């Protein structure tokens, strides 16, 4: 997520540069195009130097944007550190199942639960509509997590925008996301549905608390 924020700062710098430059030229041209102040508009049709510059310069700017962008794109795929915890997020119609099976002693699941979005009628004051869930996913902060996303029925999507992650949940396929959350708190996510005639926004609430596993707050 920090990489995404840094890339945004990089690109935004060039955006502002271009915005200011183009607006200045536009405003200046309009300002001087006055029938009394400048009755004879100049007709310039050639200008080799400026034409070369205005071709080369705009092709260099996207290069400055592309380099950090591709660097981030490929670095996001690399898993440098072994994850400490694996959580499986399985999409159903229309709820999520989360499995924590790192400590199973046999094939039955040790920790599985379903997570439903709280319907509007049951919301308490202050809770977010379509984002609150009955059972949140609790994970330790400052730990490398591996989230494996799949689906049991139709394609879903699992996303937590404040962590900069989105991953498609496809039946029969296990997609991996690496996350490391630096700050404790509650993070909300949404699922965007790609199948079905109604657009449902599924909600995922994730709770990150330091040392949650040991029971200390």
């Amino acid at each position, binding site marked *: 997520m920090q990489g995404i924020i840094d890339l945004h700062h990089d690109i935004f710098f060039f955006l502002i540069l271009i915005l200011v430059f183009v607006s200045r030229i536009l405003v200046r041209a309009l300002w001087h195009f006055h029938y009394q102040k400048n009755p004879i508009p100049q007709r310039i049709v050639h200008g080799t130097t400026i034409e070369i510059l205005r071709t080369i310069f705009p092709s260099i700017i996207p290069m400055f944007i592309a380099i950090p962008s591709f660097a981030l794109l490929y670095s996001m795929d690399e*898993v440098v550190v072994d994850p*400490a915890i694996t959580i499986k997020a*399985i999409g159903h119609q229309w709820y999520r199942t989360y499995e924590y*099976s790192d400590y199973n002693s046999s094939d039955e699941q040790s920790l599985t639960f379903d997570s439903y979005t709280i319907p509007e009628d049951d919301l308490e004051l202050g809770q977010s509509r379509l984002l609150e869930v009955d059972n949140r996913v609790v994970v330790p902060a400052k730990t490398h997590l591996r989230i494996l996303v799949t689906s049991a029925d139709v394609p879903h999507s699992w996303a937590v925008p404040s962590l900069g992650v989105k*991953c498609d949940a496809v039946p029969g396929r*296990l*997609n991996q996301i690496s996350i490391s959350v630096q700050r404790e708190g509650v993070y909300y996510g949404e699922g965007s549905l790609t199948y079905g005639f109604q657009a449902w926004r599924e909600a995922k609430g994730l709770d990150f608390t330091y040392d949650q596993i040991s029971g200390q707050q």
Partner: protein
Amino acid sequence: MADIDLKTAPADFRFPTTNQTRHCFTRYIEFHRCIAAKGEESGDCEKFAKYYRSLCPGEWVDKWNEQRESGNFPGPL
């Protein structure tokens, strides 16, 4: 604050990409081949068991167990 040792299936260099379906399937097969080679009670295979349980959704494991029992499992056991 207790120091808890968190361990899960490590990142496998054979499966570096986002799609980990084959990783889960391979670990499951490795476990059963280990059992076939070393015997049911051998403790050496426990490592593979932990890995496939961490990675594979419970439904998939149940389905594969059923397929194995009925002799339908589509993999090189």
